[in-house]
C-alpha cells in the first residue's frame, strides 16, 4: 500500500522538473509514473490478505475496497492528465504547478479511499481540498474563477472545522483514532450523547465535501466558476474520493451507530436527489447542468450508505466507475465545444451531429449512460444500488430515486436534442480535435460499453 507515498513523490518530482528545465517531459513522466503506481496497486491486490493488511502501522488499510478505489482514482487521473497536455498548451510556464497539484489531489483522494486512522482521513481531505482551492481559483484574472475559489475555500474550511470537532469528540469518547478500535469500542459500550454529536458533526462535514443537500449550495457555483478542465477534476477524482471516504467511514467505523442516523440519512438522500434534479432541469448552461446532476448522483451513491447492511461495496464501485467515465467523456467534448463556440450554454452544441457525427454519438452515449439507459454502464450502476436498497427494505427511497432518474433523462437528453435536431449557426467554426482527445474518448467509451455489457466481471473484483 505504498501508492500514496509514490504519488506524493511523483508530485514533488514534477515540481523539481521545472528547475531542471524539463517542462516538456513533465506530463509523460507523470503518466508513466502513475501507470507504474497502478501496477503496484494491482500487485497489492493480488497479494495475500495477511501481508497487505498490516502496513504502515494501520494508518492505511489495504483491503479490497481501498485497492479497487485506488485503482479507479489513479486511472481517472491518467485520463485527466492526457487531456491536460492540450488544455495547458497556452500556459506552459505554470505547467509543473498544475500537474503537481493534480498529483497532490490524487494523493489526497488515495488517502481518503484507504485510511485506517482518522488522522489520515483528515490529512487526505485537507491535501485534496487545499489543492482544489487553488485549482478552482486558478484563472486569476477572471472574476468568476476568483469567486469560485473563495466560495470553495470558505465552505471547505468551515466543513474541515466541523470534521475536526467531530473527530475530537469521537476521540474523547473512545480514546483512539484507529477506525477498527473505534468500531470495537462503540460495539461494546453504550453510546453517549457526546459520541452522537461527534458522529453527527463528521456526517455534516462529509455531506459538505460530497456536495449533498442541504449543504450543496457551494457546488454549482464553484463548478461553474472554475476553468472547465478543473471542473472535470472536481467532479470526478475529488467527488469519488470524498464519497469513498464517506462510505468507508460509515461502513468500517460507525456501523454500530447507524440505527439513529439511518433515518436522517434517508431523508438527506431523498432531498439531495430531488433538489439536484429539479435544479438541473431549469439550467441553460451545460456545465451548471452537469454540476447539479453531480449533486443528484451523490444522492444515488449515498443510498448505498443508508443500506450498509448488505454487500454494497460492489455496487458503489461499479457506480463510481460508470459515473467517472461518462463524466470524463462529457467534459472532454465540452472543452472542445467551449473552445470553438465560447459559450457554456446548450446552444454551443447546436447542429454538432452534422459537423462531427462521432463526437455527437460519443456525447450521446455518455449522456445515456449518466441517465441510466440500458445497455450502458450507468443503468447497471443504478440497478445494483437500487436492488440492494429494496433488499434492505427502503422501498420508498427507491421509488423517489426512480422517479428522479426518469426526470433526469429529460435534462441529459437536452444536449442530445441540441446536437441532432437544431441547426447550427452558419458561421460556426469546425472543432479542432487533438489526437489525444480522441484517444481519451475512445478509452472512456470502450469502458462504458464493456462494463455495461459484461457487468459481472467488474462486480467480481471486490
Amino acid at each position: 500500500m505504498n501508492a500514496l507515498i509514490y504519488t506524493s513523490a511523483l508530485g514533488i518530482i514534477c515540481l523539481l522538473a521545472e528547475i531542471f528545465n524539463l517542462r516538456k517531459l513533465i506530463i509523460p513522466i507523470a503518466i508513466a509514473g502513475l501507470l507504474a503506481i497502478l501496477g503496484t496497486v494491482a500487485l497489492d491486490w493480488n497479494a495475500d490478505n495477511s501481508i497487505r493488511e498490516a502496513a504502515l502501522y494501520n494508518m492505511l488499510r489495504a483491503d479490497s475496497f481501498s485497492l479497487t478505489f485506488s485503482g479507479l482514482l489513479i486511472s481517472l487521473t491518467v485520463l485527466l492528465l492526457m487531456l491536460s497536455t492540450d488544455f495547458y498548451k497556452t500556459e506552459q510556464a505554470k505547467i509543473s504547478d498544475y500537474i503537481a497539484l493534480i498529483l497532490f489531489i490524487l494523493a489526497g483522494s488515495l488517502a481518503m479511499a484507504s485510511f485506517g486512522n482518522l488522522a489520515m482521513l483528515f490529512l487526505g481531505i485537507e491535501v485534496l481540498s487545499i489543492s482544489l482551492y487553488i485549482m478552482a481559483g486558478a484563472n486569476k484574472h477572471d472574476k468568476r474563477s476568483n469567486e469560485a475559489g473563495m466560495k470553495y475555500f470558505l465552505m471547505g474550511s468551515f466543513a474541515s472545522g466541523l470534521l475536526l470537532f467531530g473527530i475530537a469528540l469521537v476521540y474523547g469518547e473512545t480514546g483512539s483514532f484507529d477506525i477498527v478500535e473505534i468500531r470495537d469500542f462503540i460495539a461494546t459500550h453504550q453510546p453517549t450523547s457526546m459520541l452522537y454529536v461527534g458522529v453527527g458533526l463528521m456526517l455534516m462535514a462529509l455531506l459538505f465535501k460530497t456536495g449533498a443537500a442541504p449543504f450543496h449550495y457551494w457546488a454549482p457555483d464553484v463548478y461553474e466558476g472554475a476553468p472547465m478542465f478543473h471542473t472535470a477534476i472536481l467532479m470526478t477524482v475529488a467527488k469519488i474520493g470524498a464519497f469513498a471516504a464517506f462510505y468507508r467511514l460509515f461502513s468500517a467505523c460507525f456501523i454500530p451507530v447507524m440505527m439513529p442516523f439511518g433515518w436522517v440519512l434517508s431523508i438527506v438522500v431523498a432531498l439531495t436527489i430531488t433538489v439536484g434534479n429539479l435544479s438541473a432541469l431549469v439550467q441553460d448552461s451545460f456545465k451548471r447542468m452537469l454540476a447539479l446532476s453531480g449533486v443528484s448522483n451523490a444522492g444515488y451513491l449515498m443510498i448505498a450508505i443508508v443500506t450498509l447492511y448488505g454487500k454494497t461495496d460492489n455496487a458503489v464501485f461499479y457506480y463510481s466507475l460508470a459515473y467517472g467515465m461518462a463524466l470524463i467523456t462529457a467534459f472532454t467534448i465540452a472543452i472542445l465545444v467551449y473552445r470553438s463556440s465560447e459559450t457554456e450554454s446548450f446552444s454551443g452544441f447546436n447542429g454538432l451531429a452534422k459537423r462531427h457525427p462521432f463526437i455527437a454519438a460519443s456525447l450521446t452515449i455518455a449522456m445515456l449512460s449518466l441517465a441510466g439507459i440500458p445497455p450502458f454502464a450507468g443503468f447497471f450502476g443504478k440497478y445494483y444500488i437500487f436492488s440492494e436498497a429494496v433488499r434492505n427494505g427502503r422501498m420508498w427511497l427507491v421509488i423517489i430515486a426512480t422517479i428522479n432518474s426518469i426526470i433526469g433523462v429529460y435534462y441529459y437528453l437536452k444536449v442530445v436534442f441540441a446536437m441532432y435536431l437544431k441547426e447550427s449557426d452558419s458561421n460556426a467554426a469546425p472543432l479542432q480535435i487533438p489526437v489525444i482527445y480522441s484517444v481519451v474518448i475512445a478509452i472512456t467509451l470502450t469502458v462504458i460499453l464493456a462494463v455495461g455489457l459484461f457487468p459481472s466481471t467488474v462486480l467480481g473484483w471486490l
Partner: protein
Amino acid sequence: MSLLMNIFQEIPLHNYLFLSAILFCIGVFGVLLRRNAIIIFMSIELMFNAVNLLLVAFSTYYSDSGGQVFVFFIMAVAAAEVSVGLAILVTIYRNLHSVDIDELKSLKW
C-alpha cells in the same frame, strides 16, 4: 512548576469540553454572521484552535500521545490552508478592490 501542574490536573475534564465548545461556537457564528473575509478567516482559525484545546485535554486525560500528535497535524494544515486562502483573497482584492464577501455574486442561478 509542579504546583501549577497539580492545579491544572484538578480542573475537571468537563470544563475543557465546555470552554472549547464555547470557543468553537464563537468561531461558527463568526463565519456565519461576519461579511469581511479576513474576520471569517480568523473565525475559522478560532474553530481549529478550539479543537486543538479539546484534543490536548482528552489526550492528557487518557495519557495517550495520539491526540497531541494530531494537534501538530492540525496546526500545519491550518497554516497551509490560510496561506492559500489569503492568496485567493489577494487576487480578489486586485479585481474587486474589496474584501467584502457580499461583493461575490456573479455566479447565480
